[in-house]
């Protein structure tokens, strides 16, 4: 069981790398996207939750803005193991 959570862009910039694929599991510590910000910095997007990546909403090279949905995730509701 999971419910949909979305990953939004924290900044304006261009998607430089997508480290995940649709329908794959993601974990709290995974970095999911790398965004080159308008200032030239590389921002890594990760999410403090684990679940199933339902859909990718962006592609590499796409311009994104702060708040834009990058992906939808079916979040795990169970407490994941501490190991």
């Amino acid at each position, binding site marked *: 069981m999971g419910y949909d959570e979305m990953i939004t862009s924290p900044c304006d910039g261009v998607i430089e790398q997508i480290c995940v694929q649709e329908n794959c599991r993601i974990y709290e510590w995974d970095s999911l996207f790398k965004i080159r910000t308008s200032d030239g910095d590389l921002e890594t997007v990760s999410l403090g939750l684990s679940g199933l990546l339902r859909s990718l909403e962006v592609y590499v090279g796409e311009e994104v803005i702060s708040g834009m949905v990058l992906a939808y995730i079916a979040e795990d509701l169970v407490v994941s193991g*501490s190991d």
Partner: protein
Amino acid sequence: MNHTIADKLSPITCFSINSTNVEIQEHLSTINQPFVFLTKDDELYAYIYLDDLYRSRGKGSELTASILEDYVIPISNVGEWKQGKPISLPFIFQVLGEHITLIKNEEDEFIGYIRREDALVELFRQDNQNINLLKVMLSSIPMGVFVIDSDKKIVNCNESGLKMIKSTYQQIINLPAGETFNQADIDKAFSTGETLLNQIHITDDMGVLVDYSPILNEKKQVDGMIIIVQDLPMVEEMAMEIEYVKDLNTDLNAILATMYDEILVVNKNGELLRHSEKFIPDFWGVDDLEELVGKNLMEFEEKGVFSPSVARLARDKKKKVSVVQQTPSGKSVLAVANPIFNEDGEIHRIIIASRDITETKKLKSELRETKRLSKNYKEELEKLKSKDDFANKIIYCSSKMEQVINRTKKLSDFDSTVLILGESGVGKELIANTIHLEGNRSEKPFLTINCGAIPEDLLESELFGYTKGAFTGADAKGKVGYFGQADQGVLFLDEISELPSRLQVKLLRVLQEKEVTPVGSTKSIPVDVQIIAATNRNLEKMVEDGTFREDLFYRINVIPIQVPPLRERPEDVPLLAFNFIQQLNEKYEKNYHLSPEALNLLEVYDWPGNIRELQNLIERLVVTADDNVISAEFVNQSLRFGESKKVKPMITGILPLQEAREHLEEQLILLAMKKYKTTTKAAKALDISQSAVSRKYQKILQKQEK
């Protein structure tokens, strides 16, 4: 015949077309009328309009029969007006179409002809026949006809027209046509003098196709207008459909409103075309979305009302875009913009569906916080549990075990190598664990490796580690071995007796030099590891047999701990049994306990599998028991005492036959002595001599003393 017709009546002058040219000339010269009639075979068959002939030929020119043929008009074209016969509408048109009309008498004989003007005058004078000719004409047309005068007022119309506009003659006559039809179209036709065709005119109660056809006078001025109206059967259907679509729209609106808080439709420029009834207040800064219809939403972004415009993104990217936007009052709104393309692949519309996710977001973060907390609690609990864990607690009351425990406690403070000896299931691993936990290395790692469970090559690299590229299939980065990993901690080498001789050498080196050399490396790495080794085999015997290195044996046998088998400390059995049952009761929320007789029975049993066997038995009993009280009988069944008085010895691992024999003999003697108390009785049960029992029993006791 009416005298007025007679006044206008002209006689029919005729000659044959077969006349000679000279005759023809003669005939024509004598005629003083504009029309001459021709016969063929004595039949009147055509006439010639002489004005026509002379206009093109000249009056005095040579005229032959063949020239005349070009000007003849068949007599069949001409209307025949018979006295007393009612006049039909087609006849009127026939009169209108030809120069003349032939008049017949009651005997069906031609008596002359009259000219068109005269015929019409006569026709319209004939009110005695009660024919409103114009009316007949109009009503016979299957379309609505409205006649408009120069003041743009309706002056006449037909029945079909009235039907189409669902009105009556009295209601509309003399009314401005613009009240019924399209004023702009009427004005246009009046001012340009041009006909407007196929104008669709739809009002609440009619749907018609209208032609506006101006009537021009000789000076080409618009004198009035004929409005031709046609029914549009599909217009009715369209109206029905519109009604249906309206309904559908209401339903859709209701459905969408439950899923989204606001839906907007904008065109490719970003101008708002339509919107849902429901909307997110405070987002646009208006009280009603209606105010925004026709406005460009993208401009709001430029004005800085909010950023960013999801419509602009969807338009620029030509794909679905979702953005979480913040309203001035701090609401979070998820807006999803979906572009809709036309057949040419260009953006036609953009649909923006928005949802207020403030509450959802709040709940989600609360949920996440709760999750984080419960995870922490879970970890805390786990720690508490393991602290209090029965599994790690050594249970005993026998003095033999007390000695063992005292010994471990003493050596815990030292880093000396420990060798734990004892049968399978006596708790060797548990003791090794306790040594680590009680010792000064408890904060450092405790690693266990079972020397008998891993193939030699793997065991070597696992124990000592390897450098990169040491062998194919190895981890590219190389690997730190157990010694390295257990640095400053404790390494428990279980089943040390199974260590292959090559590795025995290597282990000896580590123990002596306190450093390891990883596989594939020449460099040794210093290590600080306390070694605890364990075996259920008789190592001394193995050294004698040459299967275990003597030097290594002495190296690890610094502090030996002999864990006595359970049968040598039967007083521990009830306590252990009680504890194991307690654990299970807690786990399954049950309330089982053993009857005193059952406990007695367990005490007598010799437990070849030691505590592990007891633990398993208790679990089996609890799982299969029907009653809270586990009876001796029930235990008996599980232990299979009852099947045969002679319990079959149970061996749980491979061991040398001689060793097994010794074990078995010891067990048998002890069991017999426990049960029969005297050597005589025991000898009888074992079917050997009393002196043999006595001798063997003494030897066992001595061994146990050690």
